[in-house]
Structures are given as C-alpha cells and as structure tokens.
C-alpha cells in the first residue's frame, strides 16, 4: 500500500477543516467529516494490514527530514511492523466505532464541530505516535495526544471542575513526559541517534546488561510511560479525567492513549532487556497499581470512576506482563482491553445518556429489562474484564498470569498478586452489573439508544467475546518465549479466581447473602471505604507535597522579590536626595554665605598647597 502517509493525514486534515470552519459547519457535515475521515483511515489500515499479513514485510516511509543539526537528524518518517499494524488497527477500528457512537451521543451539543475536531486531532496524533520511526516524532504524537486529552477532558469548559481535571491530566502526564524527554536527551547523547531500530541496535552493541546507563535511560522512559498510562505514582489524573464526554473516556482514557506507555515500553523493549532492574520495577509498578486501583474501584459510586480505576488496574496487568518479559501478552491484553473497555465505557455512556446524565450507580438499578442492548453489551464487557473463561480478557490475562508465574525469583509473588487482582476485578465488575442492571429501578430511562450507539456496542461486544481468538502478527518482533507447560493446578486456579469473584459479588450485592451494609457501616469498614473512595488519598498527599508548596512559593514570590534589591538602590538615592536637597534652603543669604565660606576654604587649601 503506497499511501501510508494518508493514514494519519486523513484525520489531521479533517481536524484542520473542522477547526477552520470555526463552528459554523452544519452538524451533519461535521459528523460526516469527523467520523468519515476516521472510517477512511480505518479502511486504509485494513488494506495495509491485509498487505502486511500477506508478506510480513516491514515498511518504512520517509516524508522529510524534520531538522538537521550536525548529527541530530530526526526525520518525519514511519516504521510499520506488526506491532504498529496492531496498534493502528485498534486506534482506527475502535476509534471509528467510537466516532460513530459520538455522532448520536454529542448530537445535541452546540460544540459538536469542536468535539470532532479534537477527536480527529487525537486520532491523528495517536497514529503518529505509533507509526513514528524515531523517538522524537513519537514524542510529538505523545504530546499531541496529551494535548487532545486536555482539550477533551475540559471540553465542557463552563464548569471550572472540568478545567481543573483537564489541567491535572495534562500537568501530571507532563511530569512523566519531561522525564521521557530527558530520557531522549540521554539516549541521543550516548547513542547518537533517536531512530528506534538503529537506537536499539546501538544500545545492544554499546551497553552490557545491567550497565548503569541503560538503567537510567529506561527509568526515564518509564517515567513517561507511567505518566501517560496512569500507573503509580502518576495515576491520579485518570479518575478525574472522566469529566470529559464519555466517548472521549472510551477512546482516550481506555482504549488508546493510556496504553501508549505500554506501547512505548514494548517498542523499546531492547533497552529494557539491558536494564533488568528497571524491567523488574515495571512489573512491581504494574502489580502495585493493579491492586491499588482494584481496591479503589471497589468503593467508587460513580460508574465512570469505577471504569477509570479498572482501566488503571488493567494497564497494571499490561505493565506486569512487560515487566516479566511477556511483551506479546502485554500487547494482547492491550488489544482485548481496548475492545472490552471501550465497550464498557460506551455502554456506560449509553446509560448516562438515557438516564439524564446520572452517574451514581446507586441511583440506577433494574436496567436489565429497560435497556436490553446496553445490558447485554455491558454484561459481555464485564465478563471480559473479569476474565471469565472463553471471553477475550480471559485469554490475555491468563497468559500474563502464566508468564508471571514462570518468572524465576519473584514470579510466584507477582502471580499471587495478579491473582488477587483478578479476584477483585471479578468482584467490582459484577458489583457494577448487579447494582446497575438488577434490583429495583431508581431512575427511568427516557429513551432507547439509537442505531449509531447500538451498532458500536454490538460490534465491540462481538470483539470482546471473540477477541481472544485473534492471532496478533507479533512474531519476530519480541524475543520468543518458550512456554513450558504450567501445571494444571495453576491453570485451574486462574480460571477459578474470576468465578469466585463473580460468586462473591453475587452474594454481596445481589443475593444479599453477605452483610455488606453492616460491613460498610462499621467504623473500620467506613474508614476503609472512605479511604478507597478517595483513591487511597493519594490526591491529598500530592496536594500537600507539591500543589500547595508550589502555590505558596508562587504566592510568596508574586511581587517580585528581586525588585527589592533595585528598590533598595532607589531608596538609597531617594534618601541621599532628601538629605542633599535640605541644603537647598531657597535663602539667598544662605547661598551667598556658603559660597563665601567655600571660597575661603578653597583659597586656604590652595595657599597651603602652594606653601
């Protein structure tokens, strides 16, 4: 396929058109342009994928040299291998479905034009991110998606809370991005290139496993990945980012952008293999994040925040996979997660849309019969999220847990942690299903979702169910792993754990067999719930650690302390001026007298010198 450059350019051009129309474009046209351009891009990706699957050749496209300063010659160029094709398919495929869904979801919004402009810009930037052949272009896409995330989280700008969430998202990820930028500086300074493939080759030849430089470089890259993928310790922005429209959460904060960190680590896995300590850190970060987020998800009441924490948790699994060296499993989980999490968000969006923007799950209930399409898709999504057998999530998560088990050393610990996470996932995902769709209804839906919303749900539902059967064209990209047959006990345990979670959720929230209310209302139970509801109070911690000190510093400095030095000079000269002007009495006789005495003094001195 020749016009590979068309793929990112299509959504970017559409975004440009939408921006240039400055909101005067009729909404039909805006919707057509917005969704159509992504659809076309998806079509191009499909053609590209067909070609790629046929010949398996890596494609490289150079558009132009971005800049050339000495040896620093990054190009605007694309590198398309199996990993890229997988990512591109997810971005444009899931992206198109979400765009289609958005048409109906955002139809009544006055700023639909702006919405599609941002969304298309996002798809373009995300495509650049995954297609980039060098880290600088990747960084361009990386920051570009960050900007779009900012713009879309704060899309409904009239509420200052949304603006706050948007700024938080941008600034927290920017902290990680800055670490990543430093990583790029280090890599270029040491290896002399930022092109990914030569870079990996150079690193392999120049560095030994366990050298300090690759450890430092990967740690800095990991900083960027952690920020973008909302992992500990930079995860705090994602739950707040739910302030944006729900399709945005589906596209950016579930399916694509937040998994960019996973992509980055997978893309530069050669560096991480040279730095075992960092790679182990990746696994532990993933594990801690997945547990922490799963506990937090248990206590949330806002449907989107539950899904947000579950996203953090699932990306934790991907990090765990990367950390134990199962790169392909991590990417596989990325893909299935994109399907089922987008599905869950879109279904949640449909509920919110039909229930007058209700977010609290305890004011929903009984929607099973009232919104059947949504119910079934949400059920499939939850089953995949909880990794019930034979759903897509099962295959990917199972592979990750197995790989963790096989890791020598800390492997069983990681496996046990992951298993606990799987149990928790089962509980919180079915808590959501039982509370929202069963029991008495608290709010009546006022309409059913139309076909533009239903069709993406059905398609994504099918993908979530059957996605486990996909074979990703990742062979030859990552180092092969031999799969010694794990004992069947391990297999059975990892199949059984989500079912146990389902059972517990049933007993707690539907069957009412277990006294959940008593548990929560006891003092320690309430304390724990509030603690988890506030996301382990990490926000408060950061507030005290960073935000308030920065505010205080700015407040302290606001009136320019440096100017005090110059004002001091001014004060001194003013003081001298006042003293000296006191001599200027305005009395003629005083002037005459001082003149006489001055003269006498002068003459005296001259005579003295002459003598």
């Amino acid at each position, binding site marked *: 396929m020749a016009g590979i450059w068309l793929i990112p350019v299509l959504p970017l051009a559409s975004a440009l058109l939408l*921006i240039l129309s*400055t*909101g005067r474009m009729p909404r039909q046209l805006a919707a057509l342009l917005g969704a159509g351009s992504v659809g076309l891009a998806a079509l191009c990706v499909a053609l590209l994928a067909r070609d790629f699957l046929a010949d398996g050749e890596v494609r490289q496209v150079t558009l*132009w*040299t*971005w*800049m*050339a*300063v*000495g*040896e*620093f010659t990054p190009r*605007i160029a694309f590198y398309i291998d199996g990993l890229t094709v997988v990512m591109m398919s997810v971005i444009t495929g899931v992206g198109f479905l979400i765009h289609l869904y958005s048409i109906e979801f955002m139809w009544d919004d006055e700023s639909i034009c*702006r919405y599609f402009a941002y969304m298309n810009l996002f798809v373009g930037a995300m495509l650049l991110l995954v297609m980039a052949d060098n880290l*600088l272009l990747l*960084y*361009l896409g*990386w*920051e*570009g998606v960050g*900007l779009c995330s*900012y*713009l879309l989280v*704060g899309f409904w*700008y*009239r*509420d*200052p809370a949304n*603006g*706050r969430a*948007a*700024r938080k998202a*941008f*600034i927290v990820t*920017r*902290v990680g*991005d*800055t670490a990543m*930028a*430093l990583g790029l*500086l*280090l890599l*270029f*300074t*040491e*290896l*002399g*290139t930022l092109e990914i493939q030569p870079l990996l080759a*150079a690193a392999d030849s120049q560095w030994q496993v366990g050298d300090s430089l690759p450890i430092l470089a990967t740690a800095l890259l990991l900083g960027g990945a952690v920020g973008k993928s909302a992992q500990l310790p930079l995860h705090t922005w994602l739950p707040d980012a739910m302030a944006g429209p729900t399709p945005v959460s589906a596209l950016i904060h579930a399916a694509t952008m937040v998994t960019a960190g996973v992509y980055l680590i997978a893309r530069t896995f050669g560096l991480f293999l040279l730095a075992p300590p960092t790679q182990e850190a990746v696994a532990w970060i993933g594990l801690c994040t997945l547990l922490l987020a799963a506990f937090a998800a248990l206590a949330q009441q806002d449907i989107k925040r539950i899904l947000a924490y579950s996203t953090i948790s699932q990306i934790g699994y991907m990090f765990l996979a990367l950390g134990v060296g199962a790169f392909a499993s991590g990417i596989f989980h990325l893909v299935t997660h994109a399907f089922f999490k987008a599905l869950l968000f879109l279904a949640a969006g449909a509920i919110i849309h039909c229930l007058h923007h209700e977010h609290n799950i305890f004011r929903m209930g009984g929607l099973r019969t009232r919104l059947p399409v949504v119910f079934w898709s949400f059920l499939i999504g939850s089953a995949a999220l909880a990794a019930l057998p034979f759903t897509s999530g099962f295959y990917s998560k199972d592979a990750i847990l197995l790989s963790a088990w096989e890791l020598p050393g800390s492997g069983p610990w990681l496996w046990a942690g992951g298993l606990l996470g799987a149990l928790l996932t089962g509980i919180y995902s079915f808590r959501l299903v039982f509370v929202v769709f069963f029991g008495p209804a608290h709010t009546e839906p006022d309409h059913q979702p139309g076909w533009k919303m239903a069709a993406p749900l059905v398609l994504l539902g099918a993908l979530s169910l059957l996605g486990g059967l996909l074979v990703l064209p990742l062979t030859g990209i990552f180092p092969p792993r031999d799969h010694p047959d794990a004992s069947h006990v391990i297999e059975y345990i990892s199949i059984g754990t989500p079912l146990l979670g389902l059972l517990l959720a049933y007993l707690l929230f539907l069957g009412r067999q277990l006294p959940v209310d008593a548990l929560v209302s006891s003092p320690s139970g309430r304390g724990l719930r509030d603690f988890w509801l506030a996301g382990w109070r990490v926000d408060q911690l950061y507030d005290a650690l960073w935000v308030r000190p*920065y505010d205080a*510093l*700015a*407040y302290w*400095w*606001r009136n*320019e302390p*440096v*100017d005090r*030095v*110059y004002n001091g000079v001014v004060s001194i000269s003013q003081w001298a001026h006042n003293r000296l002007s006191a001599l200027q009495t305005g009395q003629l006789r005083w002037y005459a007298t001082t003149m006489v005495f001055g003269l006498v003094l002068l003459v005296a001195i001259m005579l003295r010198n002459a003598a």
Partner: protein
Amino acid sequence: MSMLVLILILLAGGLVAWQAERLHPDLPRWAALGVVVIALLFLLYSLPAAPVSLAADPLAGHWLLHLKLAWIPRFGIALELAMDGLSLVLVVLTLLLGLVAIASSWSEIDFKPGLFQANLLWTLAGVCGVFLALDLFLFFLFWEVMLIPMYLLIAIWGHENKSYAAMKFFIFTQASGLLMLLAIVVLAWQGLAADGRLSFSYFDLLGLELDPRLAWWTMLGFFLAFAVKLPAFPFHTWLPDAHTQAPTAGSVLLAGILLKTGAYGLLRFCIPLFPEASMQFAPVAMGLGVAGVIYGAVLAFAQSDFKRLVAYSSVSHMGFVLLGLYAWNQLALQGAVMQMVAHGVSTAALFMLAGALQHRLHTRDMGRMGGLWHQAPRMGACAMFFAVASLGLPGLGNFVAEFLVLLGLFAVQPWLAAVAALGLVTAAIYSLWMLQQAFQGAPDEWREMADFDAREMLAMAVMMVALLWLGLYPQPVLDLAQPVIESLQGLAPGANTVLALATDAAGSRS
C-alpha cells in the same frame, strides 16, 4: 548600500507617518504599513541571488551584504553594516513583527497617531540597525536609537502606571548601555595599543589579544548590557512593568524583537570578542539561565494580570536562550537562535491577544475574565494555539528550540539540563492556568464582546503558520544560522573544554 537604504526608509517613513497625521488621522497607520511593506520588499529585492546559506561565512568575510563607508575616520569610526544569515532572519522577523505591531494598534491609538507610528517605525529602524551594524560605535548608536522611541511609546501611550514603567525601562537599559559604551571604548583603546590604529570595526577588534583580567571586565560590560535586554534572571525586573504598561504594539515589539537584540548581542559581540572570558563565565551564565527559566515560570503562574503573566513567561523562555548560547555547541546554539525566532512570534501573538482583550474589556485582570470562549471562540482558539506553543508542544517552533537547547546542554551539563527541563512542567502550569482563567469557566452572560475581526485573524494566522512551519520544517532558519554558529564553535579557545566534551559525546557514538 541597500542596508543603509533600508534603515533610511524606516527613518524617513517615520517622518512621513508623523506628518501624514495633519492630512487625516487614519493616514499614519496606512503610511506605516506601506513603509514596512516597502522595506520588506526592498530587503528581499536586494538580497543576492546566490543561495544564501552558502554565501555567508563571517570569518572569511563573505557576507551576504557588506557596506563600509567612512564616517569619522579620525577616530576610526566607519558606517559599517553587514548582513549574514542570522541578521537576515532577525531583520525579516523584525519587519514581520513590525507589521503585526501596526496591525495590533490599528484601532487602538487615538492620541497623536502620527507620532505613534513614527516612534514605531523609528524603533524598527533602530533594531534593524542593531542587527546590521558591525562597527561597535555605530552599534551603540543604534542601541540607543531603538531605546528612545520605545521609551516614548511607553511613556506617552502606555497604561495607568506608564511613567514609572517607562522610566524603569529607560534607566535599566541606559545604565547597562553605559557599561557597554565603556567596554567598547576600552576595547578600542586596546586595539590602538595593539595595532597603533584606533578602530571600532568588529573585524579589527575580533581576535584581539587581551590581558585576561581586562578581558573579563570588558566582557562583563557587554554581558550586562545584553543580559538586561535579554533579560537574564536578576536583571529582568524592568520587563514585567514595561510590558504591562506599554501599548499593545509596544509590547509586541518589546517582546518580539527588542529582547532578541540582547541575545543577538551576546551571540555576535560578547562571545566572539571575548571567547576565553566567556568560557570562564559560561557556568555563571548558564546558572542565570536556569534560574530565569524556573523563576520566570513560577512568577508567571503567580500573576493575575494577563500581560504580566506573558511577560514573565518571556523571562522563562529567554532563559533557554542564555542556556543555549553558553552551552556553546552546535545543537544548543541552533536551539538558541530558533528560540529567538519562535519566541518572538509566539509572545508577540500573546501580547497582541492581551492587547485585544484589554481593548475590549478594559481590564487585564484575569480574575474579571472567564468563559470568554463562549463570546469569542476565535480568540479562544488563538489563545489556545499560542499558549500550547509557549508550553513547548512538539510540532510548533518553540519545541524545536527548547529541545535543541536541552539536547546541546545535556552533552555539557546534564544536571543543569535536568533542572531546566522542569521548565517544561512549569510552563504547562502557567499556560493552562492562563487559558482557564481567561477563556474557560462560566461565561458572564451579560458581557458583550466582539470576537477577532478579519484583520486580527489575518495577523494571527500568519503567526500560526510561521510557528507551524518553524516546528515542522525549521531547516531554512537552521541553515541560515549555520555559518555564524560554526564560526562561533571555531572560536572556542583551544576547543578544549566544552567543545571537547561535545565531541567526546559525538565520538562515543560512532
């Protein structure tokens, strides 16, 4: 000859614009517009046809244009003007931002519009002279020429606290300029002692053997003058006041091009004339640069006045220029030049925006804005674009500049680069906070506000295209600046410390 004519066009154009006021109060702005357009066309016309990047090699004396006329031969003072790629870029930037300045003051000036446009044009003439002069005496003359009309612009057409701001601006620049004059005279006398011939020519004074102590102090005289203008960290306090109080066109010129004269001076005079002393001084200068980056960003966040915020962001961004210049390798120097251009454009646009807001709302206090996106979506989109440009979004010119500076700096001083990179985070904080306060939040439904009209959108669009171009294909600018930067690298004494580090890093790659 053409460079002299260029400056004369601007000077005479000022007189024309001034007198045009007698005929009709709208005439001066058309006259000024015409003069700048003519100057721009004349400049393009008079460029040699040869590929510019090849022709320019300052040390070999191969300048794009070179003019030397006797002026005061008794003291070795000549009318010596020369243009290489760097000067060309900066002069073009000056004229383009001159157009922007005229556009931004189009309907803002009611009091003596003729004199206003005249001062504007004279400032442009002075700045062009600074970018072209190669005789140190002439350079100083132009340095003063650009100062006085700018002082008048602030003092006459400024806002509520204008005389304070204008005076502060004048005293800071003048006091530091005096030090430079002193340094120039000392340098000329040293030249006399060495060659037996008094000369103020750049080429005669370049490569003068100086006593190290004397060179240090003389270098400091130049450095202070340029650091005040840049402005570098502890000498920046005139800038927020001057920017805030100046009329919109004044702020645009001040931020867009006057600050660049400081950077240009360092690049053209301070470092090449005193390479050893500058090398010794580099750690201090880089320290000041980092301090400026962080300090400016924190203070920008602390402001509630739109223009003051942008002014402090300039302090932060110009810190990167200082870092790039004294990191003294190809990448960092190119980054510094890029930053001069990109920051000129992005900040000029932000000041134009601030001026437009003040013109419409009669306030600069962001506490009294909010939700403006609702009333003025085009304005909001422009603000968004330039705010993200100033926070260094890749794909726009400022990112290229800052990344190159950091890349060059990292090879020399990795820790300093790490601290300077914090500027990326702090820039995001103040830029987004500015957007939030002015354009997001709940709109005031009773507020009537006109959005940008076609004239303002045109100016904005030009600057947006410029920034995108600089961000996606900066090569033409890089190529133009390349000869100067190579010659600067060659000047690094013995090429033993900084350069060696850089080449070590380069060598370890291959």
